[in-house]
């Protein structure tokens, strides 16, 4: 097990370097960011040159990348165009997005798996058909529609919640945005669990467990659910990364100043330092999530043992 973890950690290095290089190149291809800094007026050439020098944009791309990576290892992610350190932006944006992601994942785990188990055990019954239809609707309606609609109804028409989240973004204000963010994944989790449960219900070990006279809830939670969770855990693990990086729509609608918003701003202003910095951290999140998922397999299914 220990060797497996080490091997996986080592594999992360090339993935990390490759993905950051790709992002770096992609942002650089977009052209000269300094041109957009002066608005509809052209920056005077001397100031533009000075700015390029300050942001290191006057050097060849490979050299920029090397300098950048060198700095990253010392914890220096550079400076955004508005004079703020990227690490400072991260320290305000990541906690907010992490809270939002936690809320969303909780919804997925609690509601998604519960619904999945319920429908999986009652395949073909009205409950099952109803939930299937509902999840289909949720999957097919775009997030921004759900988000704007709920915001309008609950925030403006009925006045139950504040339509926008305050800068501090405490947990209670993130419940609705978290639900909106989770909605599509939640539907997938429900369907995945349902299929998996329905499939395993007919397996030998479940029949044995029932034959042994174990109580129903024990059969379901210890035997059936544990074995059915593997695909679900894989999905949720990958989803953590997607939720953190892909919350742009939700964050815009509810005025959440998180990672998605900062990335959006960074791309709009073509701010290489911000974009690459945030993506670098997101890549790390993806990698760690994947590792944790793989390790969880072993916990869920003792047959999967890595030497």
């Amino acid at each position, binding site marked *: 097990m220990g060797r497996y973890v080490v091997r996986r950690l080592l594999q992360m290095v090339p993935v990390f370097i490759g993905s950051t290089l790709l992002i770096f190149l992609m942002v650089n291809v977009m052209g000269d960011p300094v041109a957009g*800094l002066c*608005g509809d007026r*052209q920056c005077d050439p001397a100031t533009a040159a000075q700015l390029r020098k300050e942001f290191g944009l006057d050097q060849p791309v490979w050299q920029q990348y090397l300098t950048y990576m060198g700095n990253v290892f010392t914890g220096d992610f550079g400076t955004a165009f508005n*004079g703020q350190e990227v690490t400072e932006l991260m320290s305000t944006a990541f906690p907010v997005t992490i809270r939002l992601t936690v809320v969303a994942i909780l919804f997925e785990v609690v509601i998604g798996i519960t619904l999945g188990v319920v429908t999986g055990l009652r395949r073909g019954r009205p409950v099952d058909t109803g*939930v299937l239809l509902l999840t289909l609707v*949720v999957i097919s309606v775009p997030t921004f529609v759900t988000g704007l609609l709920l915001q309008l109804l609950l925030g403006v028409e009925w006045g139950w919640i504040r339509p926008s989240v305050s800068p501090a973004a405490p947990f209670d204000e993130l419940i*609705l945005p978290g639900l909106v963010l989770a*909605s599509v994944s939640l539907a997938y989790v429900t369907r995945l669990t349902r299929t998996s449960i329905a499939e395993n219900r007919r397996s030998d070990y479940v029949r044995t467990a029932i034959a042994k006279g174990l109580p129903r809830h024990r059969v379901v939670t210890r035997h059936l659910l544990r074995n059915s969770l593997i695909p679900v855990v894989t999905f949720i693990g990958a989803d953590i990364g997607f939720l953190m990086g892909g919350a742009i729509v939700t964050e815009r609608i509810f*005025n959440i*100043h998180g990672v998605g918003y900062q990335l959006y701003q960074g791309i709009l202003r073509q701010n290489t330092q911000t974009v690459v910095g945030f993506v670098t951290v997101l890549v790390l999140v993806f990698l760690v999530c994947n590792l944790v998922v793989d390790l969880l397999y072993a916990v869920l299914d003792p047959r999967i043992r890595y030497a």
Partner: protein
Amino acid sequence: MRGATHAGWVACAVAVALAATGCGGGGDAGDSGAVLSSSWTDPQNPLEPANTNEVQGGKVLDMIFRGLKRYDAKTGVAEDMLAEKIETSDSRNYTVTVKDGWTFSNGEKVTARSFVDAWNYGASLRNNQKNAYFFSYIEGYDKVHPEKGEQSAETMSGLKVVDDRTFTVRLSQKFSSFPDTLGYNAFVPLPRAFFDDHAAWLAKPVGNGPYAVESYTKGSEMRLTKWDAYPGSDAARNGGVTLKVYTDNNTAYTDLMAGNLDLVDDVPAQQLKNVRSDLGDRYLNTPAGIIQTLAFPHYDKAWNKPGSVKVRKGLSRAINRRQITDTIFQKTRTPATDWTSPVLGEDGGYQEGLCGQWCEYDAAAAKKLIEEGGGLPGGQVKITYNADTGSHKLWVDAVCNSINNALGNDRACVGNPIGTFADFRSKSTTQKLSGPFRAGWQMDYPLTQNFLQPLYYTGASSNDGKWSNEEFDRLVDQANAETDVAKAVETFQKAEEVVRDNMAAIPLWYQNGSAGWSERLSNVALNPFSVPVYHEIKVG
């Protein structure tokens, strides 16, 4: 999805409970101490006077600073603020006397040195100030801000402190409107604290205006409170303003509707249809000093042929401005009939109808003109724009439709979107475009000069199409040297006629500023820069 919906209800119940306790402390409406909240966007650049070139940062500077002059919120005329007098006999050497009794909000006196130091800082190449060119008329600017290489002087030779309240300015050329430019934010004075501890100042700027910064959380909000010891006559009539950063102006509008926000100074395009019924009288839509034009690549031979003027005029006549501003912009734009802006007023140089028939829609005439001019270069025009902000796609497509209909050719005009503003700017400023491109111009100060010289003078900073005309340049020089303001304006109008006769750029429409506010507020107005006049707003 029953469970999920259920959870939503629980969420709301929690949120309601919290909101209720949160609102319990309120109830201070109806006095001059009440604070209003207003939508804001994160400034793009560090918040320094000479480094701020967009509306959002300028908004803050306008609240916490007062300069030598100030533009009247209604007429746009430059009036003395901190300046007791600005004297000149030759339009080149100016003596400025600063009024007595002004201080910064930290107690430091505003002196002649506060101005001279600030201007020298702004002009210095080393400080990367994006508005440095504002000081380029001052003698010695080329030493502190050379076009190439290191700067060879620390300060501009044209600036001299005479005594505590007097300083002199020597310009490198005659410029009669110079005093009128001094209302711009780049020219405000700076306290010693700015130079002594720059980082601390940026974290919490200190100025000399009616408001003082109470706290500034970058990226989320800035709290400004009324500065009680403010010596000026335009003290704030409310207790303060909280600027809240919004990720999207739609969300800000939603918050206004829900009663969580008092003022939105940019009503989103999607809401324009409903805004009248939503807000009634609490909505404002007035012209601002912004004009949108279509610029041409005059550096490209295809657009710089003998017949090109006719082609450009033909294109101008093929655009149905009225229809586009009515349907796409819901009348938040006004069809342009000259190259300046109505906010200048008749005396300031705005001349309604200067463009004449060339800006009037006439399909038949348009077709004829373009044919006479030798047809469209390459048989097709591509209008380049940035697709990331400002819903430019909508109007570019409409303009193209109008041109295609007028010419009876489906392929006469197409839009050419570019992903980001930065990319669009880098292509347009490096002459990489081969067709017309969108050009927006927001004035720096309400002067005709500002609408003409930076855009059409040979080699000027925003002359991206590289248009060049000797007659125009001569008239601008002449107007700048004119000591009589009325005569200067008249000469600028003559220069504008040269722009018209050559159709250097097609004027499209003047942009309006818009604002919507809650029932708590009254006396809301926008200045010619489309920024709310915050200190005038009454709460309660």
